[in-house]
């Protein structure tokens, strides 16, 4: 067997989580991510891990809260409406500073919507659907390899930052096949060593423990809660500096800059080649982290830029961050599809040309 293997996205992400140390998975079936619970139920026990099918997504996120508070490494997944149900729990995890990696293999909405891919959970992912002041770092892979690498890394990062981490992917990436190189499996952490790695975790009240650990999100006294939220925001401020990731090219002499993430960035890259053949220079900004958003990358846009286009599988969500990055310097336009419809590269190229004509480029 060669170094690479051919895997389906959902399987590859699951295997990456296991190799990154995940030993606990809780979930409830929903298309198009069902291969993940299927894979985890089969594979996790082989690694001494546990799979539990919860009775709902609300239950799954709270099981994650419990297992992760006890020091376990947890990966949970769902698709859009299921992730919506988990929002309250994510706010609790963020407040209690409990690490967990959460993946949305997103579909289209609103409501039950459909099972084809969408990116209309951008606000949900980056702004948070839960209550209160909190932030969750969000990574959006554009290929299976990048997804594997980000899931694997997020398992570590989540522990390091004591914060939930979010992987925002979509039904295409979940369902498609690609060759991937899997990372080496991290060594198991023995139960008795959890205390060493996570001194805050609920590992039991030993004889020699000076203090009892507590993991809570309730702080009833206003001054105590304000102090706690300030502490969280000091962490988020560091995260904004350290976790920002972006790919970009062609910004220095572009007529148009397309901003796109995940699977749409791949379609956009092909559109950029089509436009280049017609003499139109198009650059790309592909945010890999959606929060923190790579606003600074927009400083690289040259004076000659005529328009910045947000290409997304939604009706204009990413575009809000694009506008924050661009400011008043250039016009910003949307190329969106929704309902599970996916634009072809030709469509993105044609719509880009039309926008250029409209603004008099």
């Amino acid at each position, binding site marked *: *067997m060669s170094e690479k293997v*051919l895997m*389906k996205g959902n399987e590859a992400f699951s295997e990456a989580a296991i190799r990154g140390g995940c030993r606990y998975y809780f979930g409830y079936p929903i298309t198009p991510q069902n291969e993940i619970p299927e894979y985890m139920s089969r594979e996790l026990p082989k690694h001494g891990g546990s799979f539990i099918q919860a009775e709902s997504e609300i239950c799954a996120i709270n099981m994650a809260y419990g297992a992760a508070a006890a020091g376990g490494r947890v990966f949970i997944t769902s698709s859009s409406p299921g992730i919506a149900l988990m929002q309250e729990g994510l706010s609790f995890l963020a407040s209690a500073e409990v690490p967990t990696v959460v993946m949305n293999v997103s579909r289209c909405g609103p409501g039950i919507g459909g099972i084809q891919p969408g990116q209309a959970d951008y606000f949900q992912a980056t702004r948070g659907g839960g209550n209160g002041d909190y932030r969750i770092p969000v990574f959006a892979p554009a290929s299976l390899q990048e997804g594997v690498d980000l899931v694997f890394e997020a398992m570590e990062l989540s522990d390091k930052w004591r914060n939930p981490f979010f992987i925002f992917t979509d039904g295409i990436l979940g369902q498609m096949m690609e060759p991937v190189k899997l990372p080496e499996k991290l060594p198991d952490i023995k139960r008795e060593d959890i205390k060493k790695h996570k001194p805050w975790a609920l590992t039991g009240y030993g004889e020699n423990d000076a203090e009892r650990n507590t993991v809570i999100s309730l702080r009833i006294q206003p001054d105590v809660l304000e102090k706690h939220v300030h502490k969280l925001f000091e962490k988020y401020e560091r995260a904004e500096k350290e976790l920002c990731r972006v790919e970009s090219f062609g910004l220095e002499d572009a007529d148009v800059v397309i901003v796109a993430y995940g699977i749409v960035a*791949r*379609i956009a*890259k*092909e559109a950029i080649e089509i436009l280049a053949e017609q003499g139109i220079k198009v650059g790309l900004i592909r945010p890999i982290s959606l929060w923190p958003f790579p606003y600074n990358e927009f400083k690289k846009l040259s004076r000659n830029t005529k328009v910045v286009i947000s290409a997304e599988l939604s009706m204009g969500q990413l575009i809000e961050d694009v506008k924050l990055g661009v400011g008043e310097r250039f016009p910003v336009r949307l190329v969106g599809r929704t309902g*599970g419809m*996916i634009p072809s590269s030709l469509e993105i190229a044609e719509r880009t040309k039309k926008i250029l004509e409209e603004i008099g480029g």
Partner: protein
Amino acid sequence: MADMRFIRHTGRKIIVTGHYGSGKTEFAVSLAMQYASLKEKIAVVDLDIINPYFRSRERREMFENSGVSVYGSTYDYEITAELPAIGAKLRAPLEDKDSRVIIDVGGNDAGAMVLNQYTKYFTDDDTTMLVVVNSNRPETATLSGALDHIKSIEDVTGLQIDAVVNNSHMLSETTAQTIINGYDLCLKICAETNKFFYCSCFPAGIVDPEQLTGLYGHLIPMGLHMRPAWLKS
């Protein structure tokens, strides 16, 4: 063009099984195209209720222009119905003795279970059941993994797989060696299970079939019919 006489020796009904991601659907489609090029009446029945994406009914128009009739497992052009329902119309090509029919079954034993309601059509001598093997899929990369997989499909359907298809590939990263490695595994499977070796597949335009002349059996060119252009790179 490869010698295609061998494909006339299969039964009128050809069942295509395999792991999901083995390339069953692309194989079923490519095989159907071969029959269509011989001006045979040919239908593809899509029994895949496992995979919600990238199913053969999505390319219905392309097939019908090539002379391949497609019978999907949901209603006509509806590609995203989440109801894994199978319409009665699917029996039409199975009943039509003038039509060759390729049955594209869902992945794994779970997907193959759907065959059970059609068993009466498959107990005659006019049925050939194939298993598609891709040795780059982790679960079927070893002899024991592949044998377990084949057994699980046979157990759940109560049908015997007749022959093995070597569809070992890595999409656009496929090399002649990828195919040769898979071929070696498939011959071992055949020796172990007393099954026939059916053919090897090669991605047209990516691997030169001249590099595969040492392989026993026939070569079927595969196009990535089901994959949008921007996923091919």
